[in-house]
């Protein structure tokens, strides 16, 4: 299915968009999302080596499951303050 991953800061700039639209079979894990994004969003390759995912507004480890309806975001370097 098609899912949307929110992008911010340098990742939004690199992708030229505030979200990445990715094809991924659900349910899946964050690790599978990361792999699918590497293949489908090459502009984000550098960030995908280390950036964290947030699932429903909380940081998620790579083995965390994701399903339809989850809000997904790729969080690279933040710069608040």
């Amino acid at each position, binding site marked *: 299915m098609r899912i949307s991953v*929110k992008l*911010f*800061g340098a990742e939004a700039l690199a992708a030229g968009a505030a979200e990445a639209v990715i094809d991924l079979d659900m349910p899946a894990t964050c690790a599978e999302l990361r792999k699918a994004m590497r293949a489908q969003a090459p502009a984000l390759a550098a960030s995908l080596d280390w950036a964290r995912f*947030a699932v429903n*507004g*909380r*940081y998620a480890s790579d083995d965390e499951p994701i399903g339809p309806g989850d809000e997904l*975001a790729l*969080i690279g370097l*933040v*710069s*608040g*303050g």
Partner: protein
Amino acid sequence: MRTTDAIKVRITDGPLPDAPARNADGECGAWVVFEGVVRRDEGGRAISALRYTAYEPMATNQLAELAGSILNTHGLVRVEVEHSRGQVPVGACSFRLSIGSAHRKEALAAMDEFIDRMKQDVPIWKEPVWA
């Protein structure tokens, strides 16, 4: 805004207003306040403002969680956080952390740790608006 007796977190559109009046009940012997102010250049190039983006509600939740963790670890009395989103002009305040504590040392250590962890974990981003 997320509030308990001991913790306040607020993300505000545009520059932060002046520091709010603080509770004067005499419980805190020390208040340490950090204010981040927009500087007139970024990497040597003049700017007119910074524009902040916050991923909400995650940003507020992360700030509140961090405030609670710092409050407990350092034995503080109050932790109040304010952060801007949107555009903040040069010279204006975009971030304020106010720590109330019985004594000074733990407040200073807590402030340093809070800001380090915020800059790692809280989903807020800034971009320059060139002059």
